[in-house]
C-alpha cells in the first residue's frame, strides 16, 4: 500500500522522513559491509525481478487474484540489510518513475514496507529457522500485516476520518492480504529451492536468538495493536485521554504545530516544512558522512 502525497499530515510525513533517512543510511552501511562490490548488479536485478514478479497472478478466492509484495521473499534470499535496501530502491523507483506513492511520503512508505516490513519478515526467519514452512509463511504474513497496519495507523493519525465499519473492513482485507502473501512467499521459496537449493541459503544464523525473540514479541504486539487500534479508534482516543497525553509536553518544540514561531503568518507553515526537509536531508548526509568516516578509519 503506497501512500500518495497530501494524505499524511505534515507532522507524520516529516517525522517519518526524519526516521527513515538515517535508518536507510545505516542499512546501506550494514549491507555494504558483507557485500562484494561486484554483487551490486545482482541486487539491482533482483529488485527488477520483484517488480516483474508482480505481474504473475496467483489465484485466490473466486475470480480474484493476488500478487507477490516481495519483502519477505527478498529477506529469505538476501538477508535483512540488503533486502531492506533493495525494497527502498523499489519503493523510490515506484514513487519517482510510476507516481505510485508520494515523494514527501517516501519516508513513510520506506519505513512501512522496507524497514518495518523487512524486520517483521526477518524475525520469524531467524527465530523458527528449524521449521522452514512455518517461518516462511509467518515472514510473508507479518511483513504485510506490519506494513498495512502501519499505513492504516499513519492515515488515521493524519486525520483521515474513516467510519469505524470501513476501518474494520479494510483491516480485515489487509489481514487476508497478509495470509495470501504468506502463502505466496512459502510457495515461491519452495519452488525456487527445488530449482537450485543454493539460491536460498540456510536461515541467517547471525544475531542472537534472544534478541530475535524480543523483536518477535515486539512485532506481534505492534501488529496486533495496530489492527486492534484501527478496528476501534475511539478506544485508542479514550486511552489517550486516560493517560492525559497532551497535558504536559516534556519538551517545548521550537516549531510546535509545524509553523515557525516568528515571521509573517503566511510564511510560517511552508517555511517550517521546507526547513524540516532541509534538516532531514542534512541529518542523513551527516549520518552517512560520520558512518563512512568510521568505516574508513
Amino acid at each position: 500500500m503506497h501512500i500518495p502525497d497530501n494524505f499524511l499530515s505534515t507532522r507524520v510525513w516529516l517525522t517519518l522522513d526524519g526516521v527513515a533517512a538515517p535508518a536507510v543510511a545505516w542499512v546501506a552501511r550494514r549491507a555494504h559491509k558483507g557485500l562484494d562490490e561486484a554483487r551490486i548488479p545482482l541486487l539491482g536485478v533482483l529488485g527488477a525481478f520483484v517488480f516483474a514478479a508482480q505481474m504473475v497472478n496467483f489465484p485466490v478466492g473466486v475470480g480474484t487474484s493476488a500478487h507477490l509484495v516481495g519483502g519477505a521473499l527478498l529477506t529469505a534470499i538476501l538477508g535483512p540489510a540488503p533486502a531492506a535496501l533493495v525494497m527502498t530502491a523499489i519503493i523510490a523507483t515506484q514513487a519517482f518513475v510510476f507516481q505510485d506513492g508520494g515523494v514527501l511520503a517516501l519516508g513513510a512508505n520506506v519505513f512501512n514496507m522496507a524497514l518495518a516490513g523487512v524486520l517483521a519478515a526477518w524475525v520469524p526467519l531467524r527465530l523458527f529457522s528449524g521449521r522452514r514452512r512455518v517461518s516462511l509463511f509467518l515472514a510473508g504474513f507479518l511483513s504485510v500485516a506490519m506494513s498495512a497496519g502501519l499505513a492504516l495507523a499513519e492515515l488515521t493519525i493524519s486525520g483521515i476520518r474513516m467510519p469505524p465499519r470501513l476501518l474494520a473492513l479494510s483491516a480485515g482485507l489487509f489481514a487476508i492480504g497478509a495470509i495470501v502473501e504468506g502463502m505466496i512467499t512459502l510457495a515461491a521459496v519452495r519452488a525456487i529451492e527445488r530449482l537450485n537449493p543454493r539460491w536460498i541459503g540456510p536461515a541467517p544464523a547471525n544475531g542472537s536468538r534472544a534478541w530475535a525473540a524480543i523483536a518477535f514479541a515486539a512485532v506481534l504486539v505492534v501488529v496486533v495493536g495496530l489492527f486492534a487500534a484501527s478496528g476501534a479508534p475511539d478506544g485508542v482516543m479514550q486511552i489517550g485521554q486516560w493517560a492525559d497525553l497532551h497535558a504536559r509536553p516534556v519538551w517545548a518544540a521550537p516549531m510546535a504545530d509545524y509553523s515557525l514561531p516568528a515571521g509573517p503568518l503566511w510564511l510560517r507553515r511552508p517555511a517550517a516544512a521546507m526547513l524540516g526537509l532541509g534538516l532531514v536531508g542534512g541529518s542523513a548526509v551527516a549520518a552517512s558522512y560520520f558512518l563512512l568516516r568510521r568505516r574508513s578509519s
Partner: protein
Amino acid sequence: MHHVVVEQWSRRRSFLHVRDARAKLLVALALLAALATAPASPISAVPFAFLVLTGIAAARLPMASMLRKAAVVLPFSLLFALVEWAAGQPMAGMALLAKSYVSALTVLLLVASTPQPLLLSGMESLGAPRLLVLMAQTLYRYLFVISEQAQHMRLAASCRQGSGARRSRARAFQAAAGALAILFARSYSRAEGIQRAMAARGFTGDFHSLQRRSFNSRDTVFACAGAALAVLAHLVARRP
C-alpha cells in the same frame, strides 16, 4: 511499455531539460512541501497547477499525455475522497483529490524533464547513500528487460493452457509459484552474466557518467526562483 515514453521525453531539450538535476529536485520538493502545507481546500491546488502546467509548456512536453499519465493516482485518491465525503467532509475529500493529482503531476514533470541517471546522480550528490543509488540504477536499467520477460512467459503460459482451461485452484497456485521460480532463475542467471561482463570491463563499484554537469549560476537562479514561486503559490492558496 508505459514508461518508455517518459524516458524518451526526458531526453528532449528545453529550458527545463538543461537545468541541473539537483536544482529541479529542490524546486520539486519545495513545490510539494508548499502544496502539502496549503489549506485543505481544492482551490489550494489551483496556483500550483498553474505553475506545473507552465513548467510542462516550458519543457515542451505533450500536455494531454502528461495529464493522463498523472491520473494513475486518482483511483486511490477517489476512494479516500469518497470516504471523507461519507464522513461529512466533501471539501476535504475534493482537496485530497486535487492536491494529490497536482503532486503526482509535479513529480511526473520532474522525471519527464530529467534523464534517470542524472536524477539519481543528483540524488547521490544531495546525500543519498551510494549503494542505494547504484542499486536503483541497475534496477531501473533491467526493469523493462525483466518485465518484458515476465510478459513473454505469461503469453506463453496462456498459449499452452488456453484461457478457458479449468484447473483446481491449488494447482493453479502451484503453477504460478513455479512461474515465479522460473522468472527468478532467469533473472538470477542474467544477473550473473551482467556481473561477469561488468567485472571484465573493470567495474569496481562505481558508475561513470559521460555527461558531467556543474551547478552553474543559471541553475542557482532557477532553484531560488522556483522556491520563491512555490512560496508565492502557497500565499495565493491561503487567500480566501
